[in-house]
């Protein structure tokens, strides 16, 4: 297994390099002028030249790209163009709030969606199945922004069940502020996920070994939770693992509407201000997370389904 993991990780290197190369050139072509953005409306040619020198933007493109690669290897992405803070500090500060929002939401969404999928699959074709799937389709069809705007207005303002906006860093104090955004993420996620899990589970329900289990007199609960669920774990693991990079990178809209100082908001601000060091580091973080979760997903497959061998 070690050899498999090492090989997959090595295969990820060109992917990460490709992503960095594309990001770098896209930013150069379309990314605007961070120097002018920072210096503002009175910038003089001398000041622009001095700051370009300081940021290394006066060097040939390939040198700038090599410097970017060095930053990746040393994990030192320098300082934010805007706030002059070390980039690592800015990103680390955002990880905690983003995870506080996304991890509970992923857990709750997965548990609820799998449960709905099990119930719908168990009663496939009957009213309860159709009702749940109609609800799921309706849930998927409504824009994320509508959930946020209406949810915030109704549940935090009209009926003050939740905080409207804000965040506290303490492990306990943050939850009142996170409760509503988590609820929205769960509701939004459940629409797609429950349909997906229902399909995966329904496929298992039709298999012969399940019929055999019923024929042996096993109860519906035991059949569903032990025999069906275990065999449907591969698609469930796939779906969950796809979400893992987004756990760290946060949710742009939710963070922005609810004042959660996570990485989504950090990226939004960086894009708006052409803060290239933050954008570069964020891109690398996302690419590395994707490669790692892909490898981890393969390892999980082997763990949950002994028929799969890593080679």
């Amino acid at each position: 297994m070690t050899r498999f993991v090492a090989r997959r990780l090595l295969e990820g290197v060109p992917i990460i390099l490709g992503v960095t190369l594309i990001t770098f050139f896209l930013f150069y072509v379309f990314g605007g002028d961070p120097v002018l953005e920072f210096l503002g409306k009175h910038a003089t040619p001398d000041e622009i030249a001095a700051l370009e020198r300081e940021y290394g933007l006066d060097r040939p493109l390939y040198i700038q790209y090599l410097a970017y690669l060095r930053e990746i290897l040393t994990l030192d992405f320098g300082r934010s163009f805007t706030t002059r803070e070390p980039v690592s500090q800015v990103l680390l500060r955002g990880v905690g709030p983003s995870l506080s929002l996304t991890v509970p939401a992923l857990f709750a969404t997965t548990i609820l969606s799998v449960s709905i999928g099990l119930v719908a699959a168990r009663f496939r074709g009957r009213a309860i199945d159709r009702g749940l799937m109609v609800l799921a389709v309706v849930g998927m069809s409504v824009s994320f922004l509508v959930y946020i705007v209406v949810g915030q207005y109704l549940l935090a303002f009209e009926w003050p069940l939740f905080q409207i906006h804000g965040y506290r860093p303490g492990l306990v104090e943050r939850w009142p502020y996170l409760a509503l955004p988590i609820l929205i993420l769960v509701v939004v996620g459940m629409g797609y996920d429950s349909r997906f899990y229902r399909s995966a589970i329904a496929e298992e329900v039709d298999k012969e070994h399940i019929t055999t289990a019923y024929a042996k007199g096993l109860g519906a609960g035991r059949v569903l939770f032990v025999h069906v669920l275990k065999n449907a774990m591969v698609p469930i693991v796939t779906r969950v693992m796809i979400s893992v990079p987004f756990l760290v990178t946060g949710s742009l809209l939710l963070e922005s509407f609810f004042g959660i100082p996570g990485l989504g908001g950090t990226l939004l601000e960086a894009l708006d201000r052409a803060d290239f060091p933050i954008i570069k580091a964020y891109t690398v973080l996302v690419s590395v997370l994707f490669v790692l979760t892909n490898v981890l997903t393969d390892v999980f497959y082997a763990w949950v389904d002994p028929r799969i061998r890593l080679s």
Partner: protein
Amino acid sequence: MRRALWLSALLAATACKRVDSAEVGKKILHFGVRSEVASLDPVHASDEASSIAQGLVYEPLLQYDYEARPLVLRPLLLAAMPEVSEDLRTYTFTLRDDAKFSDHEAFADGVGRTVTSTDVVYAFKRMADAKNAPKGWWIFADRIVGFDDYKEAQNAAPKFDYDAPVEGLEIHDARRFSIHLTHPYPQLLYILAMAYTAVVPREVVEHAGEAFPRLAIGSGPFQLNRWAPGVELDFTRRPSRHEQVALDGVRLHIFPQEQPMWLKWRVRDLDVIIVPFDYQPALFDRDKGLREAFVEDGVSMFQYDKLDFVFRGFNMEDPVVGGFEKGKLVRKALAAAYDVEEIGRAFYDGAITAYAGPIPPGLAGHDDALREPYRGPNLALAKKLLAEAGYPGGRGLPPIELNFYRGGSSPEQAEMIRRQWSKIGVDVDVKLFSFPELSRRIRDKKAQVFSLAWGSDYPDAENNLAMFYGPNAAPGSNHFNYRRDAYDRLYERARVMPPSDERTRLYTEMRDLVIEDAPFMGAFARQRYYAQNRRVSRFVPNETWWTWLKYVDVEPRAR
């Protein structure tokens, strides 16, 4: 099950709790701002949120009178207004003797010391140090004797020497110093009220190093208690100070989105907000009066007319819309087909003041009654001018490229302009960019027609008129690349003159030249509305300076 119920009850109880118990009985002003505070270092003071935060902590030498209109300068760190020499080239200042910095470990015994002349000169020199990436060197460039040479020499040296002398910055003693100018610079006093020139303690700057922009140790009325990036900044009043302040503290809340700010104000978590355009119809009736429900709730509002110059600019070097012959006719035709009032009604809830020329209302040189002869909507004139330019009915005219910011309502505004211009047969190619991209295009002279806004840095039209001075062409502030010798000569005469009727006459001449050449169209100033809940009193906002929040009063918070 029981545990889950307890947890739910606890969550609900905490969720509904709005007033922090530590605030009960205290006068804390809660103020909503629309963007993150980028830096607390005065040399970076350019965006609104940072300027508000810096204004609580740092002090420049002068500030404006809180309630007097038009704006009048008053001493802040000074004991009196400066003495000015007869040739208007030497200003001598005396600092007050009771202004002290906040406590910090970098000071002897950790106690903040008195502000001295050396601190003032040090703060000015920080603006010359390229390593600080200062945003405001333009305020000193080519103004103070020997300062430009000092800047060049020190930035070229291995280490920037803050102890090296500058001929034009003369320290007499701990409280007295003089500034010697290369030529009269009547705007100097406005400059000395700007956050860029706020005084900082050298030992703290050197102690903090790169962390200084996140620190806030100044002589102002508040000290930074907590900064939660992306969420809020909490300031508490300093125990003893040279000015009496009613507030116990100020909390700046950051809202990238409008809805949560509006809702937080509605539930009175916020005391004051700048009312977003989209929420003005909810607050105001058709006559811009407060709706009855808000009046009954004790809400009041303050209308503030920004010193604002929002315009659609033309690149005067462009082969189609540039120049002073055919291009000028095209520019005027486009201006005559443009309806600025429709833009105002559709996108600003009517809260704009359209005006002629580049000098906004409230400044010497502005004339409320003046209208450009080609002011739109005047389609007959537009068609006539277009035909005179050789493009009858728009035939032969290549599509006009509109370069707009892709955020806010700008894309929709561009579409409205496309529709307005289509009435005279002009095709439009709308190009949308992030703000940095748009800036680069303008700087590179690639933007044929573009939309920008300029907020006056100080209440003197010279600041706006500099935008048409030839040597300031892109990448400078003359985004239009407007060059006219007659204009440049007038500007060079006027900029060294103190306020007078003669200077106002020159300003109007320059204004009229610009109106005649039409390097932009459709100038307007935006109105802003501040809404404050019933706890707030003594609220007279002004966006030219930001050290005024200390003069606001609020009732203590109740549980």
